[in-house]
């Protein structure tokens, strides 16, 4: 008898704990970044929304330019510009309801401002008079987060807590391509998927983590593909197409709100400026590359579409420009005033009540300040 014959009716069975897994196909992102502007899909886009996006993009670009100028005048310690990424910044803010929460990274001042936070308060961190200038609860915007990806689990926890309380609140968390290499990115996405938390993760893939290009950051087919491993859908979108980013995020927010769980969105965009004013981008990338992206500018893309469809005349353009200039003038004027600082504030918010040890140190500083003042007289 051959071995095959001996086997008789034996059939291989899967290991006991094995279960059929979810079909990964519906979770996979599109092969190319989703576009609305310049495609047939643009006809479905809400003209009013596109005009709002346009006005905000123009305002956002002006804000980036003004804030960068303020670093040169010594009014800001540093400014990580989002020039070229305004479509992501603005869409992320506009897609949310008032009760929702935004979790920005340090490059997302623009999203914070577009959400309604006072433009000066949003710059407190970068001016350096305190760490967070705005009340996070006023507009439901978490503090601008510097340690990469560490804000993502916060968004998951908040969304989870809201769901436990029966509130239909969605959290939208922003991170860059570099941030996707961090462990907190992985843990946040995993927790979100396991808990089916109403979260949307927006990765702005702007090509660089300071100087390191995406190819040195990941070997994944795309950043959106990472979603599949967690069991959530990944969406790939042209990050400079404001209408497309808004639509994809709106779908993800709706899905989260309806109990469908989290989504990972990768928006393909480009950081036109250097990492910050302190960075020299000529050391790691060429002008030609930057130029191709300048020609794929988010404001121009939207302007072209709106103009072609007769939705934007010279008056509307001028009014967007004027509003942006007024914002910039106000920002300049207010940022040119020295902030009023009270060194004794240093001790005010370490604990609900200062410890005895902090009270001693507080007294030391008070004495130093009094001696300074006496010396001045």
């Amino acid at each position, binding site marked *: 008898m051959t071995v095959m014959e001996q086997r008789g009716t034996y059939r291989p069975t899967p290991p006991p704990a094995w279960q059929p897994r979810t079909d990964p196909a519906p979770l996979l992102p599109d092969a190319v970044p989703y576009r609305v502007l310049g495609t047939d899909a643009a006809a479905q886009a809400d003209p009013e929304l596109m005009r709002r996006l346009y006005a905000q993009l123009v305002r956002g670009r002006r804000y980036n330019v003004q804030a960068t100028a303020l670093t040169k005048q010594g009014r800001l310690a540093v400014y990580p510009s989002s020039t070229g990424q305004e479509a992501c910044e603005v869409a992320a803010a506009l897609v949310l309801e008032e009760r929702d929460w935004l979790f920005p990274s340090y490059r997302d001042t623009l999203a914070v401002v577009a959400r309604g936070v006072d433009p000066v308060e949003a710059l407190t961190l970068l001016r350096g008079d*305190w*760490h*967070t200038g705005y*009340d*996070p*609860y006023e507009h439901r915007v*978490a*503090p601008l987060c510097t*340690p990469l990806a*560490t804000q*993502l*689990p*916060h*968004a*998951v*926890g*908040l*969304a*989870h*807590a*809201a769901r*436990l*309380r029966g509130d239909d609140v969605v*959290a939208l968390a922003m991170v860059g391509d570099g941030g996707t290499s961090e*462990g*907190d990115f992985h*843990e*946040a996405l*995993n*927790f979100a998927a*396991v808990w089916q938390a109403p979260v949307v993760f927006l990765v702005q893939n702007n090509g660089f983590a300071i100087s390191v290009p995406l190819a040195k950051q990941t070997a994944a087919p795309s950043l959106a593909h990472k979603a599949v491993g967690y069991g959530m859908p990944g969406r790939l979108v042209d990050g400079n197409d404001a209408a497309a980013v808004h639509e994809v995020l709106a779908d993800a927010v709706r899905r989260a709100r309806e109990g469908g769980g989290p989504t990972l969105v990768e928006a393909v965009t480009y950081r036109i400026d250097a990492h910050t004013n302190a960075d020299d981008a000529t050391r790691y990338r060429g002008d030609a590359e930057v130029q191709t992206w300048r020609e794929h500018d988010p404001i121009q893309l939207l302007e072209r579409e709106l103009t072609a469809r007769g939705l934007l005349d010279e008056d509307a353009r001028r009014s967007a420009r004027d509003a942006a200039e007024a914002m910039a003038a106000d920002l300049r004027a207010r940022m040119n005033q020295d902030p009023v600082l009270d060194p004794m*504030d240093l001790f*005010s*918010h*370490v*604990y*609900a009540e200062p*410890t*005895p*040890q902090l009270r001693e140190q507080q007294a030391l500083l008070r004495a130093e300040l009094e001696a300074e003042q006496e010396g001045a007289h």
Partner: protein
Amino acid sequence: MTTVALKPATMAQALTRGLRDAMAADPAVHVLGEDVGALGGVFRVTDGLVKEFGEDRCTDTPLAEAGILGTAVGMAMYGLRPVVEMQFDAFAYPAFEQLISHVARMRNRTRGRMPLPITVRVPYGGGIGGVEHHSDSSEAYYMATPGLHVVTPATVADAYGLLRASIASDDPVVFLEPKRLYWSKDAWNPEEPTDVEPIGRAVVRRPGRSATLITYGPSVPVCLEAAEAARAEGWDLEVVDLRSLVPFDDETVAASVRRTGRAVVVHESGSYGGPGGEIAARVTERCFHHLEAPVLRVAGFDLPYPPPMLERHHLPGVDRILDAVARLQWEAGN
């Protein structure tokens, strides 16, 4: 709610009772961690909580400490009061970035607008025969992080009282549970109104006149034993149980050392860069003219925590404590 008098009770039981009472008193209190559900935690401290309060209140999380603490931050932002269990001292290290960059400073960053009432429970210390990565004394890391309270009980009653105070605190608390005292028993009646023990107060566990042993957590019973043994040498040792490393009760400690004129700090944590250096400095600054001898430290050696078969040589024991007491310049002082 029925109250069962636990007499005698173990520290683990008192902690369970503390969690249960806190959860019953405030629906915002949520417990999360690894194996805290059906298993009741590897030390069984969360035993029965999932049955009583459901999985939404007592949650088995994915195995990821940064994720556990990071999501707890978000939960606290939304008004919940998370109690996080780190399974072992050394397993808490992946959560350090969340702890140091967010938990400890969110109140400060936001000018008091976003306090984070999170309790991080960490079983710590050695003496249980644990293999590598299961016996660390990590308190010095936490003490060096402004914005955290650091608390550690040494008795069954304090385990309950300090845990309730920690959960009720609007500031984040690192709650260090001495592993080898989990099964220590004490006559304890939870119905007595000793519910909440305010954070920041040391206590004299044993009054004495000759010298002060300043200690906390797992070393408290060791010091009490040393104090008993010291009687044979003619020394009447006072034992101060710090209970709270942050804030530090300078008043109680200094008052004791001024009375006795001599002090030894005892802990399992390493000596160099450990809590003892800070404590000795604080005592010296406040009691210099009362001191008959330099403040000494009896601590773990400055080693990676030893393998279990060698740990008894590492941990401060009665003999090493008495040797230190003998070096407190008795001839000069008398």
